[in-house]
């Protein structure tokens, strides 16, 4: 069991979250090339060490959270809201 700090709800068990995939993938424009879409949908790195990934706090606020987790030690060094606008608002505290 790992524990994830939700920016809204605080430190919670990972059983409250669902894993939502690799946060390092940038999805191409809807009219981009087939190769670009193929890469984004099917090709994934499997890094050893720090990795950015999405988790959704489905048993809590429902927010998508970008988590930086070490794939070897499970150490989590950063969590923030995936939505940049919401992340900024939460950080500024306004």
């Amino acid at each position: 069991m790992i524990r994830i700090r939700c920016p809204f709800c605080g430190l919670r068990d990972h059983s409250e979250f669902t894993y939502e995939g690799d946060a390092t993938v940038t999805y191409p424009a809807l009219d981009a090339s087939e190769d670009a879409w193929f890469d984004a949908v099917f090709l994934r790195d499997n890094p050893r060490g720090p990795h950015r990934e999405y988790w959704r706090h489905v048993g809590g606020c429902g927010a998508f959270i970008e988590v930086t987790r070490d794939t070897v030690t499970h150490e989590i060094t950063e969590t923030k809201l995936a939505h940049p606008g919401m992340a900024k608002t939460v950080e500024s505290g306004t």
Partner: protein
Amino acid sequence: MKGYRLPEGGRIDRSARISFHWDEVVHSGFKGDTVASALLASGEWVIGRSFKYHRPRGIMSAGVEESGAIVSLWSGERRVTNVKATMAEICPGLEVFGQNAWPSVRRDFGAINDVLSRFFAAGFYYKTFFGITGRGTSEWMVFEEVIRRAAGMGRASDQPDPDDYEVVHDHCDVLVVGSGPSGLAAAEAAAGAGLDVILAEQDFEIGGSALTGLSGDIDGGAADAWCASRLAGLVASGGRVWTRTTAFGLYDHGVVGLIERVTDHRADAAGLPRERFRIVRAGRIILATGAIERPFAFGNNDRPGVMLAAATSAYVTRFGVAPGERVVLSTNNDSTYGVAAALAGAGLQTTLLDARSDLPEAAAETARAAGVDIRAGTIAVDVQGRTGVTSVLAGRHSAGGQATGGDRIDCDAIGVSGGWTPVMNLISHKGIRPVWNEDLASFVVDDPGIEPVTLVGAAAGQFSTPACIAAGHAAGEDAAKVLKGSRAAPLPRPDSGWQQPIAPVWEVSHPDRKLKCFVDPQHDVTTSDVRLAHREGYVSVEHMKRYTTLGMATDQGKMGNVIGLALMAEATGKTIPETGTTTFRPPYTPVSIGALAGDERGTHWRPTRHTPMRSEHERLGCVFTDAGFWRRSWYYPQGGEGLADAARREVVVVRSGVGMVDVSTLGKIMVQGPDATEFLNRVYSNPFAKLPVGKARYGLMLRDDGIVFDDGTTWRLSETDYFMTTTTANAGGVMLHLANLLQTRWPEMRVHITSVSDHWGGLAVAGPKARDVLDGACPDIDFSDDAFPFMGVRQGHLTTDVGEIPVMSARLSFSGEQAWEVMCPADYAPAMFRALEARLREAGGVPYGLEAMDCLRVEKGHVTGRELNGQTTAADMGLGGMVSKKKDFIGKVLLGRPELAREDRPTLVGLVPVSPNARFKAGSILFPPGEREGHGLGHVSSIADSPTVGSWIGLGFVTGGLAEWEGKVISAENPVDDQSVSVRVVSPHMFDPDGGRMHG
């Protein structure tokens, strides 16, 4: 001579006598006894039988490492198997049974295997029986049955577990595991520094080694008095103390799994769970888990009466039980001197064989003063006595276990110590590898890495009680510094505290004797087996473990693992660190599945989802069925009707008149905001940009890879408000998909989505007379064809018996009939049902259920999850026209992949049996006539008993589709039921193919 109760001493309550059954004979002990101590006090020697040779096994330890006294407790549905007698408390009425023996552990016919033991080396069964017949043959399966029975552990109950278990979640600043001197000192110091502390102890008493006589006096007073004082200090500072609670697994981020045994020691257990699974989230974890004494291997060292040295003093000091009148101890380290002094102090004739020539003089002097006969440079070589020790051969020891000559010493019990192995299982669970320490001749953990863990005391390789206490205290204070962020540097590594270095001994050899030396007494693994494994090419410890089964018994190698590693190292000519160690994984000691499950049984606390119209369905005698998360109305029987008759009648009424069905389970999502139109236009494959307000549209949603994800209708309520419906099954999945897009992929879009599935109750009114039902039902909605065209959306009110309620309605059809969906706020749903039902009855209609609804849609060729199965494209389902060529949308690019655009993909067809009475099944494989092998043309996805067509009908996917097969006969093969039905391929729109009825 056997074990007996000493006239005084021990921590047992001699005023509280407790009776229990041992193999159906009544025995008794005192409050505070374990099964092992009570049986030992009763003079019982043989408690178990070994796994393979059925050799008699006695009590070998006083703790979790027990490898001999393995028993079953209780009977019937409450029977628990493979329990260590050394860990089980006695309680009134307890039933204890021997295992792996017939008729009993004392007279076991299986012991014939021991006579034949030279044939039963490691791998015997597999070599012999696979060799004869080959694996997987029926002969092997017969052998295996017999072998497995002979090598039985306890027989588990085959009845449902009648007990309750619970899962409890806890938090604390510091969790201390183990309540020996170092753990108590750590817990008291941490609590004294203001931290929230939990102290967990697997035993039923606090004190660890302080209870066993090992630690001697502490601070000039009795060890147990010192413990009581620390405990009082801890509790006064608010610390929580959990006994009978084993920390069985260490997980990430300071999460620890513990099992608390709540009722196994109580006769009165009413209302309590048998066990609690406690999940603790701790800021810091202090592992004061102590060390486990390990034996060395010598001749017949598995005989009842041979036990660990420290266990002999544990029985004397804690339980007031002598393992025998004359005890011989054989050791290679300092720890046994305290043991010897304790035994001699209790009046036992005690001989101490020390493999070393240089003795720890101070300790030796104390022992001698207590009356111990110490013999330097000697070692136990061979044991005499079959079901109990009668004497031991003590040889001259040079080094590394090599012995010569020897004197026979008569004795009743033998205590052996080959050193101590720190208990590092928990930190190992986190993948932290221990390192070999030459001074201690054992593995230790030097650096817990990033884990919030400190090891203290014997668990850290520290064996002097005052030093352990100091280290525990420092660790408690250190935890406070770490949690407050004021720690400068981690604690230094302690030294061992031995006066004289340990002399490593793994196995005793003697030039004149062929010795049978056990490494894993429970699994009957001998030193010869380990060497055999090496000769046969198993050089990795992991392979050796699996080949010999060393360390795979219920003690999981707690006793024998290190010896096995050392012997393997010797055989391969490598050092022990080069040989490596096996990995410990949770659980530390066995955990019952019931405890992990807790209340998660039966329906697992999942809510039973009924639609808001449940009360009305029940009033009508509706039969419900489980569909996904829901209890849905299945059919409404009249008279003695069953499912088939009721569903057929309901279909006929809908096609000829009108019916009404509960559609509340549809997923419903409000999509709102200035960019809502653009958003929908991107997520649906068909155009949404120009959907006017007041209109609904059927939409197809694709995945990124071009496969169809979901379908449903979306109603435009205003410029910026859309009401989206999804399939029942995908309600959650679509919500997640949209949320993902808005939060991660297109955060710039000004769109808000809200799940409103539970907020709206819905009914579909369908049939040629649907308008008769609705016309006049709503004072502010005109249901005429001109005012409310196909795919129109209207909002207004419905007159009901609770007054006028707000509704919204869309004219759309799943059944293929003229139909409207009417939605109202969920609380009004029963009133809406009653209002429309009354009008329905006037028009001669009936409510219909899921079965009839499914038939109606199959007749019409409408798709559901059986067709949207994650493999099909829009074109596969004949919905290619819903894929826009003009706009961009999710899934468009990858839908263009050649494989998805292939002409010969299986496409949707209707299927009607050639013989009208024939019935075929969904899942059948479709083949060209005359074939029934291979993958065929495709499969049957849905079937229905259609009164409209007059036979069973189906939808399916066929390679070549209608273009190639329309009108032709193919074969639906169901090899599971050996069923073969000839079916004719027809258009999937088996009813009203031009759609005139729903538009009319």
